[in-house]
C-alpha cells in the first residue's frame, strides 16, 4: 500500500544550475522541468540522456530556458517521447523563448544543438492545461493525478501538485512569487494544507529584497537621469516572461503625462516581440485580477501598448529616435540583442545598463552584477557576416557546382522525382524563414474595422508622384536622401564600421559566415542591478513553508550557503523531514503510509455523533469489519451497467470485491476510549469568546485572567491548556465555553 517516492536531482541541486529532476512515484517517472543553462552544458545532458527512455511524463513550470531550455534537444536529438504537460501560456511563451534563443544564437554563430523544427516538434507534444485542471495519468501512473496551480513569477507559471489518491500529495514549487504584481496574481501555495512532500528551491533563501516601490523608483530615477543627460538605457530582460511586467510598467509610466518621459522613446527589441505582445493580449485571463477588472471595465487591453515600439532588429531599432529606453533580450547578455547593444553602448559614460535578473554565474550579466562597471572585460565577439570578395566567389562557385550536380542527378531520375524536388526546395525555403512571422511595420493597426474614410490632417491634397525628371531619367529617392546620421554612431565611434554589417546580419538568404574576435571592452556606462525577477525572498519563503508545514521537504537549487541556511532553519520545525540533495544524488522520500478503503453502512453513519471541528466534522467510531453481499448497495440504485465501459466496470468490480464494510460494534463490546480534545486553542481567540459572553478577562504575563482574577488560563507548548480557578459558578461557565472550542470525541 505504500508508494515508493524518490527524487533524482540531475541538475539544480546545491548549486545554481537549472532545475531538472526525476521524480519517481512507484514505477512512474516524472521529469520535473528540464532547464538548460546559458552555455548549454553538455555534461548535464550526458547525464540526463541515460534516463531519457525511462521518463513517462514531463511537467514544465515556466516558459523560460531555465525551466524548459533542454526540451527541443531532448525531443529532437535524444528521442524523448512521452506526454509533456504545461499551461497554455507556458506553451505559447515557451515557444517564443526558444525561437528567440535560437535566432539570437544563430545570428552570431553556427548553432546546431537544435533547430527550429526541433522546437516545433517538442512543443507539439505539449498537452496544454488550465490552472486547477486535474489530469489523471495513464498506464503505469494509474491513480496519479497532476494539477497545475498558479505560481506567479511568469505568465502561466505553475506549481505542480502530484497526487496519489489518498496516499501522497507532492508539491513541486520552484521560483514562485507569493506577491501580487502588476500583471500577475501571487501564488496560491499557502492554501495547500500539509502536503506529504514539498520540493522547492533555496535560491533566494538568504536573499533580501528591497520593497517593490523602492525598486520601481530606482528604475525610474535611473531612466530619467540617463535620458536627460542624453544617454540611452539598455534594460536586459527575458523574451516573454518577466518582460511583460516591465513592458507594462514602463508603458504605463510613459502614459503618465507628468512623468516627463514623453519626449523620449521606448522600445522592445527581440526576435519575436510582435508575437509576444499578441500572445500577451490574448492571455488576459491568466493575469492579475486587477488587470482583468480593468479590461472588463474599460475594454482596453493592457497590452495594447501606446508608447512601446516593437522592434525585431538593430536596424529597426536605429529608426527609433534617441535617447531611448530599450528592453532587449537575452537577460544574460551571452547572446542576442542585449549583447550587441551592450557592445555598442557600454563605452559611453552617459549610457546606462540595467540588469533585471541574476543569471547563471559566469554569464556576462552576472559578471557585471558582481564586479560592477568600470572594469575592462575580455569578450569574445562573434557575429554572422556576409561573404565578400573572394570568399563570396568561392561560395557561389560551389553553389553552382552543387546545382549542376543535382541537375545531373535530376536528369538521371524519373519525372516523378521532379515534383518531390520542388517540394524539397519549397520546404527548404520554409525552413529558412520558418513560421516565425516578423512583421515589418512596427505600428499595429489598432482599430477593429477598416477605417471607412481616409483621414487627412488638412484639406485633402494629393501630391502627384513624379516618376521621372524632365529629361526622362528615373528619379530614385534614395539618391537624394541625406545620409542617415546614426545616433549610435555618435555614441561610439568604434562601431561605425560595424554598423552596416549588423543591418544585414539577419538577412539569411545571402551567404554568410560566422566570425569571432576577442577584444577588451571597457565598460564606461553606468551598470546597475535592479531586481525584477519576481521571486519570493528568503524571509517569505520560510514563512510560506512553515505555514505549509509539509511532512517532508526537499530543498533544491541554491548556492550551498543558502541551501544550508534554509536546511538549518527548516530542521527546527517538528515533524518535518528535510532533505538537501546535491547534484546527481537520489533522495528516497518514501514514507510508510498504510491505507485501505471500507464502506460505511447507513446504520453506522446515522448513528454517528458528528462534532464540528476546524473545516471538518469528527466523530469517534467503534466498528468492526465484515464482508457483505455487495450487489445490492455497491452503486447508486439508479446506475445501470454500461456496455461500453465493461472493462472499466470489471476493474471497478474487482476493486469493490476488496472493499470491506464497516458495521457498528454491538454496544456491549465497545471498550471505552481516551477522550480526545481536538483543536488548537489560541488564548486571544478565547478571550473574544469570553467577551462575547460578557465575561471580563485580561492578559497578564501570558496568562488569561477571567472574572476578576478568580480564574486563570495558561497555555503550555504542545497544545496543553491549563484552567485554574477557585470553585464558583463562573468556573463552570468558563469551562463550558472552553469545551465549546474543542471537538471532543
Amino acid at each position, binding site marked *: 500500500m505504500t508508494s515508493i517516492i524518490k527524487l533524482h536531482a540531475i541538475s539544480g541541486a546545491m548549486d545554481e544550475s537549472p532545475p531538472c529532476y526525476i521524480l519517481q512515484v512507484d514505477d512512474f517517472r516524472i521529469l520535473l522541468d528540464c532547464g538548460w543553462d546559458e552555455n548549454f552544458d553538455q555534461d548535464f545532458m550526458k547525464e540526463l540522456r541515460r534516463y531519457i527512455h525511462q521518463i513517462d511524463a514531463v511537467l514544465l513550470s515556466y516558459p523560460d530556458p531555465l525551466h524548459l531550455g533542454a526540451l527541443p534537444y531532448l525531443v529532437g536529438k535524444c528521442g524523448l517521447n512521452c506526454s509533456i504537460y504545461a499551461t497554455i501560456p507556458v506553451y505559447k511563451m515557451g515557444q517564443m523563448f526558444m525561437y528567440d534563443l535560437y535566432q539570437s544564437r544563430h545570428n552570431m554563430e553556427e548553432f546546431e544543438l537544435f533547430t527550429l523544427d526541433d522546437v516545433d516538434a517538442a512543443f507539439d507534444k505539449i498537452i496544454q492545461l488550465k490552472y486547477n485542471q486535474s489530469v489523471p495519468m495513464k498506464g503505469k501512473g494509474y491513480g496519479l493525478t497532476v494539477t497545475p496551480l498558479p505560481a506567479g513569477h511568469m505568465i502561466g507559471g505553475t506549481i505542480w501538485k502530484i497526487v496519489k489518491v489518498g496516499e501522497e500529495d507532492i508539491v513541486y514549487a520552484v521560483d514562485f512569487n507569493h506577491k501580487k504584481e502588476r500583471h500577475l496574481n501571487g501564488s496560491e501555495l499557502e492554501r495547500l494544507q500539509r502536503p506529504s512532500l514539498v520540493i522547492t528551491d533555496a535560491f533566494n533563501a538568504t536573499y533580501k529584497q528591497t520593497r517593490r516601490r523602492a525598486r520601481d523608483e530606482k528604475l525610474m530615477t535611473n531612466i530619467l537621469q540617463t535620458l536627460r543627460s542624453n544617454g540611452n538605457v539598455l534594460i536586459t530582460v527575458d523574451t516573454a516572461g518577466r518582460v511583460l511586467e516591465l513592458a507594462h510598467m514602463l508603458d504605463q509610466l510613459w502614459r503618465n503625462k507628468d512623468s516627463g518621459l514623453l519626449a523620449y522613446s521606448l522600445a522592445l527589441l527581440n526576435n519575436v516581440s510582435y508575437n509576444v505582445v499578441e500572445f500577451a493580449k490574448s492571455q488576459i485571463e491568466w493575469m492579475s485580477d486587477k488587470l482583468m477588472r480593468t479590461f472588463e471595465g474599460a*475594454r482596453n487591453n493592457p497590452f495594447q501598448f501606446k508608447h512601446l515600439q516593437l522592434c525585431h532588429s538593430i536596424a529597426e531599432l536605429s529608426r527609433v529616435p534617441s535617447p531611448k529606453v530599450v528592453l532587449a533580450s537575452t537577460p544574460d547578455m551571452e547572446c542576442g540583442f542585449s549583447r550587441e547593444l551592450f557592445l555598442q553602448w557600454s563605452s559611453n559614460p552617459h549610457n546606462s545598463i540595467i540588469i533585471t535578473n541574476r543569471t547563471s554565474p559566469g554569464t556576462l550579466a552576472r559578471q557585471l552584477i558582481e564586479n560592477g562597471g568600470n572594469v575592462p572585460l575580455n569578450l569574445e565577439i562573434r557575429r554572422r557576416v556576409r561573404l565578400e570578395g573572394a570568399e563570396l566567389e568561392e561560395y557561389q562557385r560551389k553553389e553552382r557546382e552543387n546545382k549542376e550536380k543535382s541537375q545531373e542527378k535530376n536528369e538521371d531520375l524519373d519525372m516523378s522525382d521532379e515534383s518531390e524536388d520542388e517540394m524539397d526546395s519549397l520546404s527548404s525555403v520554409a525552413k529558412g524563414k520558418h513560421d516565425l512571422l516578423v512583421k515589418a511595420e512596427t505600428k499595429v493597426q489598432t482599430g477593429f474595422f477598416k477605417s471607412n474614410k481616409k483621414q487627412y490632417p488638412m484639406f485633402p491634397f494629393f501630391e502627384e508622384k513624379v516618376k521621372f525628371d524632365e529629361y526622362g531619367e528615373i528619379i530614385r529617392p534614395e539618391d537624394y536622401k541625406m545620409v542617415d546620421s546614426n545616433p549610435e554612431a555618435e555614441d561610439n565611434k568604434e562601431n561605425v564600421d560595424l554598423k552596416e554589417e549588423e543591418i544585414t546580419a539577419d538577412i539569411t538568404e545571402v551567404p554568410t559566415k560566422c566570425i569571432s574576435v576577442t577584444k577588451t571592452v571597457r565598460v564606461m556606462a553606468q551598470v546597475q542591478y535592479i531586481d525584477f525577477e519576481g521571486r519570493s525572498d528568503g524571509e517569505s519563503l520560510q514563512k510560506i513553508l512553515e505555514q505549509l508545514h509539509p511532512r517532508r521537504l526537499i530543498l533544491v537549487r541554491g548556492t550551498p550557503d543558502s541551501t544550508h541556511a534554509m536546511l538549518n532553519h527548516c530542521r527546527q520545525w517538528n515533524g518535518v523531514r528535510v532533505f538537501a540533495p546535491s547534484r546527481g544524488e537520489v533522495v528516497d522520500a518514501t514514507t510508510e503510509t498504510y491505507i485501505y478503503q471500507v464502506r460505511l453502512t447507513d446504520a453506522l453513519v446515522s448513528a454517528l455523533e458528528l462534532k464540528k471541528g476546524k473545516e471538518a466534522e469528527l466523530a469517534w467510531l467503534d466498528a468492526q469489519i465484515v464482508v457483505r453481499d455487495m450487489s445490492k448497495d455497491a452503486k447508486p440504485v439508479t446506475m445501470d451497467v454500461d456496455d461500453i465501459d465493461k472493462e472499466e466496470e470489471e476493474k471497478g468490480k474487482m476493486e469493490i470485491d476488496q472493499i470491506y464494510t464497516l458495521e457498528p460494534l454491538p454496544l456491549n463490546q465497545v471498550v471505552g476510549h481516551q477522550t480526545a480534545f481536538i483543536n488548537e486553542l489560541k488564548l486571544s481567540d478565547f478571550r473574544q469568546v469570553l467577551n462575547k459572553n460578557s465575561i471580563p478577562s485580561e492578559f497578564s504575563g501570558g496568562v488569561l485572567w477571567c472574572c476578576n482574577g478568580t480564574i486563570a488560563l495558561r497555555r503550555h507548548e504542545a497544545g496543553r491548556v491549563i484552567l485554574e480557578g477557585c470553585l464558583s459558578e463562573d468556573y463552570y461557565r468558563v469551562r463550558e465555553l472552553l469545551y465549546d472550542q474543542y471537538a471532543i470525541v
Partner: protein
Amino acid sequence: MSARKKPDSQVPAEESDLLLIRPLGAGQEVGRSCIMLEFKGKKIMLDCGIHPGLSGMDALPFVDLIEADEIDLLLISHFHLDHCGALPWFLQKTSFKGRCFMTHATKAIYRWLLSDYIKVSNIATEQMLYTEADLESSMDKIETINFHEEKDVFGIKFWAYNAGHVLGAAMFMIEIAGVKILYTGDFSRQEDRHLMAAEIPNVHPDVLITESTYGTHIHEKREERESRFTALVHDIVNRGGRCLIPVFALGRAQELLLILDEYWSQHPELHDIPIYYASSLAKKCMAVYQTYVNAMNDKIRRQIAINNPFVFRHISNLKGIDHFEDIGPCVVMASPGMMQSGLSRELFESWCTDSKNGVIIAGYCVEGTLAKTILSEPEEITTMSGQKLPLKMSVDYISFSAHTDYQQTSEFIRILKPPHVVLVHGEQNEMSRLKAALQREYEDDPSTKMELHNPRNTVAVELYFRGEKTAKVMGTLAMEKPRPGHKLSGILVKRNFNYHMLAACDLSKYTDMTMSQVVQRQSVHYSGALPVLRLLLSQVSGNVEMLEEKKMRVFQSVDITLDNKIVMLEWIATPVNDMYADAVLAAVMQAEILDTTPSFFPIQSKMDRMHFKECLIEMLQEMFGEDSVPKIFKGEKLYVTVDGKKANIDLLNLEVCCEEDEAFQQIVQTAVTKLYQSLAPPRTD
C-alpha cells in the same frame, strides 16, 4: 452551510438521498433560464435570466419560491439575456450571499450587454429591475472560472466544458457527494468559424439537464448554409442592390462577419462594395473577442500567431444612419435582429420598395416581430409611422443559430448515456416532441434505461440517489491488513463528503487538526483536618493513594493537595474525570461541614478477610443447612456439600468449582460473588 432544517423532514437534509431539480424559468418555455438543484443540503442555482418578451418584475423567473440566502452557488452558462439578465437584480437586490461563477469572456461581455439592455429598455425607472450602478457593483461579486478548471465551493465540486453556442458559453459539470449533474446551458455540437463544437465530457453524468430549443429539427450542413449565404449576398450586390442582414449584436454576428470578411478577401472584384456593421455594442465587445481566443477553436488559435482574425479588413463600422451615405450596392449588418425598431428597421423601410435590394434573416425570430412577418412574404408592410409600403425586395431565411438540433442532441445523449435526462429551454410542443423521439430511440434497447423528464416551471423532478459512503482507513489503524471481524476504533473525520478514519495519535499527521489536553485545577476552601478528608474520600472512591504527605490521588486520575486551608484538585479533563472530580468535590464539601471531628478513623484500605470468611460460612449454612459446610477450615479453601454433591470454593480468586452439577455451581458462585461485593470496598478500575 445551511443550518436551517425543514421541520417536517426526519432525516437532516445533508443525509437525504433526494435530488431535486426545479426549473424556476425555462421549464417548457424559452427564456428566463433558472434551474434550482437541491441535494444533500446544498442548493445551487443554474443561470438567472429574464424573459425577453416580458418586462419589469414579470420577466423574472419564479424566485419567490426560494430563499435567496440559502443558495450556496450560482453558475451562469453564457451571456445571453435569457441566461444572465436577472443576475444584477439577484446579486444586488436579494439576500443572496453564496458565490457566483462564470467564464472570463462571459463576464467581460455581460458587463456591456446588460448595460446596453438597461439603456434600450424603455420602461419607467421604478419598474427597472436594476440600474447601471447595480450592474457595476455586481461585477465585484462575480468570480471567474476557466474551462476545465476545477473549483470546490462548500463541498460542491464543479468545472466547465466548452459549449460552442457563443464565446465563453459553458456547460457545467457539478459533483456533490459523488453524484454528477451536467447542465448544458445552450450548446451546439457543430464547429463553426470561430467557436469549437461543444465538448463531450469524459465522465458520465448521472443526470443531464439539456436544452431543447430546436426539438426534433435537423440543421442544414454548415458548408451548404455558408455557401448559400455568400452566394445570396453576392447575387444581391451583383444586381446592384443593397443587402440588409438584421442581426443580434453579439454572438452569431461575429460568425457572419468572419464569413463575409473571408469571402470578400477571396473575391477581389467585390472590394469596391463596402460592408458595414452598425452596432456600437459589438464594437465595444470586439476587444473581448480579440482577447479570449483561447476559448475559440483551434483554427482561430493557430491563426492568432500570424494575425488576429477579428481585425477585419473589409468591414467598416457604421455609427448610425446619419453617417451612412446610401450611394450604391453595399452590405449592411444592423441590429436588432428581429427588426422591431432601430437601425435595421429604418434601413428596411427605406429599401423594401426596390426589387434589386434583399434582406437575409439569419437567426431565430419570435412570433409577432417584423422579421417573422416578412418570412411569409406579404404584399405590403406597415412602417413604424403606420404607412403602408409595398414589399418588393427579396426576403431569405438562413438560420445561423448555434443551438443543438435533434441529431446532435441524440448523439450527445448516446455517448453520455445518462440515466436521467431533464429537458429545459424549449417550447412545450418542441420539448414533448423531443421527449417522444428520444423515448422511441431507446424503447427497444433493454441495456439502456433512461428516464426523461420535462418539468414545467416550479415543478420539481425528484430523483433518489443512494449515495454510497466509503471511508479511508489510514495510518496506524491501517497497519494491520483488514479482515472480517477485525475491530476498529478511531476518529472518523468527515470533510466535504469524504470520510477518513484515523487513530487519535495520527490526527495531526494527516489533517491540520491537533489534539490538545486541558488540565483543570480547582481550589476550594477547606478548614478541616486531613484525616477527615481522607476518610470521606475513601468512602467515595475506596482506594486513596497517598503520593506525598499532603497529596493524594483518587480514582487514579484526580490529584488532591491540601495546602494551607485550601484544597486543590487537579485532573486532565475528560467527561469521566470531570465526573470524578465533581464527586471528590462533593466529598470535600461534606468534610467541610462535618463540625465534629469523628474520633475513629478506620484506615481501611484492605478488607477484613476473617470477617468475610465468617460471613460466608454463615450465609452458606443459611442457604444449604448447618451441615453443609465444615465448621472449621484453614487456609483459603472451603467446600460445600449438598445432596452428596461437593463444590469447592477458592476464596482467593472467588472461584467455585463443582464438576457434578453445573446449576449448583452457579448458585454458589453467585452467592459468593454477591457477598464479596457487598463487603469489599468499591473498586474503581
